[in-house]
């Protein structure tokens, strides 16, 4: 009898998860905000089309066999003068379909952005937890470094780290490693925010009784930090991660645009804009216009989503 009751309770909870989400304040505020819905939809469409780029893209822009130089500089939605082929967003100087290069470029941009934020988040969380929980010298050193780094604009820090890391990579691997060096540079330029927020939350949480209780039953400091304190600090981290993602995508595009980011063999949106700028004067506007619009849509919608998330998760603003 008792067993049966436990089972029903469990099933109720199981069944209730989706329902609980749909009845939550969080989902309610999402439903009520047109900005959040639209930007969420835009982000979903862009991310999905980047992930499934090989299926969606009409051509593979990195397969030389599929390219026809005769198709070069075809304006969007118009048939080419020589081959009669027509392209949705036109073609660039090498006859690559701009729509396809954008889909593939977005993959690189999103991958670098997401990986950099993940790296910055992990580093920031670990350093924030350690400095908040242990205090003393560790805290002084970590937070001093954070203070110093905050006085420099993060795009400059990313550039400097990229330059130094590129110098230390052996010449023959430089192009292959460029993407990873880029992730390292943007990630290292962006950990401070995470560390500060996590440290602040840790300082508050570690005084609470459940932490004392966990310590009494003999849990290790790492278990307390990761399993007990961290879950209570996650919602601001989530907000910062979203806004950081928008910043990281723009930082990546800026570095690639400047020619110190993604190599020409793996063009990201920034690289495409860099290529397109060269054709601005000769009237081939579409090579620049479409990648630039994609970058803007991506960065803006992630940013707006982050803004909404901040308001929705912040109980003080509710």
């Amino acid at each position, binding site marked *: 009898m008792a067993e049966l009751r436990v089972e029903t309770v469990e099933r109720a909870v199981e069944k209730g998860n989706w329902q609980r989400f749909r009845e939550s304040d969080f989902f309610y505020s999402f439903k009520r905000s047109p900005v959040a819905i639209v930007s969420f939809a835009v982000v979903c469409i862009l991310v999905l089309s980047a992930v499934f780029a090989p299926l969606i893209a009409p051509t593979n822009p990195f397969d030389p066999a599929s390219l026809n130089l005769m198709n070069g500089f075809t304006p969007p939605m118009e048939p080419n003068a020589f081959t009669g082929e027509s392209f949705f967003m036109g073609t660039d100087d090498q006859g690559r379909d701009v729509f396809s290069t954008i889909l593939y470029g977005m993959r690189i941009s999103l991958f670098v952005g997401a990986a950099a934020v993940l790296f910055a988040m992990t580093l920031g969380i670990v350093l924030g937890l350690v400095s908040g929980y242990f205090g003393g010298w560790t805290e002084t050193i970590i937070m*001093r470094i954070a203070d*110093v780094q905050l*006085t*420099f*604009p993060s*795009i*400059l820090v990313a*550039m*400097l780290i*990229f*330059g*130094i890391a*590129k*110098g*230390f990579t052996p010449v023959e691997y430089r192009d292959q490693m460029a993407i990873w060096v880029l992730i390292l540079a943007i990630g290292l330029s962006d950990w401070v925010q995470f560390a500060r927020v996590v440290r602040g939350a840790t300082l508050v949480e570690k005084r609470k009784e459940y932490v004392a209780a966990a310590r009494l039953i003999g849990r290790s400091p790492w278990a307390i930090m990761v399993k007990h304190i961290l879950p209570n600090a996650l919602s601001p981290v989530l907000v910062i991660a979203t806004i950081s993602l928008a910043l990281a995508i*723009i930082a990546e*595009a*800026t570095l690639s*645009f*400047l*020619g*110190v980011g993604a190599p020409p063999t793996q063009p990201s949106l920034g690289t495409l*804009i860099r290529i397109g*700028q060269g054709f*601005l*004067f000769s009237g081939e*506007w579409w090579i*620049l216009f479409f990648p*630039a619009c994609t*970058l*803007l849509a991506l*960065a*803006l919608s992630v*940013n707006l989503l982050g803004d909404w998330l901040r308001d929705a998760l912040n109980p003080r603003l509710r």
Partner: protein
Amino acid sequence: MLAFIIRRVGQSILVLLIVGLVAFSMFRFIGDPIDNMLGQERTMEDVERLRAQLGLDQPFPVQYFRFLEGAVQGNFGVSYRQGRPVAEIILERAPATLELALVSGIFAVVLGIALGVFTAIRRQGIGANVIMAASLIGVSLPTFLIGILLIYLFSVELGWLPSFGRGQTVMIGENWSTGFLTESGLKALILPAITLGLYQMTLIMRLVRSEMLEVLRQDYIRFARARGLKDRAVYFRHALKNTMVPVVTVIGLQIGSIIAFAIITETVFQWPGVGLLFINAIQFVDIPVMAAYLMLISVMFVGINLIVDILYVFIDPRLRVDRAGAH
């Protein structure tokens, strides 16, 4: 007070020593400097002689100290790519960047304060709302896209302004080339200066606006109005003056950002300044130029922060009164 200054100066020097260590490690561990200086045909004696001559056979701390000694005297070695002393190249390029930074700084401060006051006074007006909405778009556009947009509008479509370079320059004295004195030089300045200053302009505008709104709510403004002062006197002599402390701080801190973001603007407009030099140095892994830029920009940022921190105590009378009371 003195203890605070000494502690802040000490911290700044420590930061610079660490940055110096990074710059020095780049020199020492990226490739072999001897390889970079001597060509393919060389004898072992040549190598040993040059190694001793450059002090590369000395222990690491001694070499580091020598590097710092050289850096303080402005000696960063020879550019791998151009084969000329780095200090010479940077001095040659510096006027372009400084003139650009100056013009965009003035643009940002003057227009930022004016628009900030305007949007605060006419808070409900259509003009103010349009400006606020436009500023939101301006903040979310990446700098390089703003530059490209301006080039497209004013150079490609309208053909009014040049899209790259500094135009004609005139030499003042030995080594200052200025674009201020020729028509083409002034024309070439406009687009890069707007691109570079736009972000700072919106920042200052929003700050002035929110500070003004804060101040205008206070009692002394009501009393000033009750005394029958004219609007202009209330807004500019009483209200604006009291928003200036945070505004001056932000302007001070933004000087560094303007120089840093000049890298992006200079690349978009092919402006022959220090930022473009740095980007090219990263592309070609020109270590001496990179190291010199790293040191320069760190000295600038650390210096600006130090000065702002110390000035803050002097500027804000409330801090001073507190301290006087405590003693």
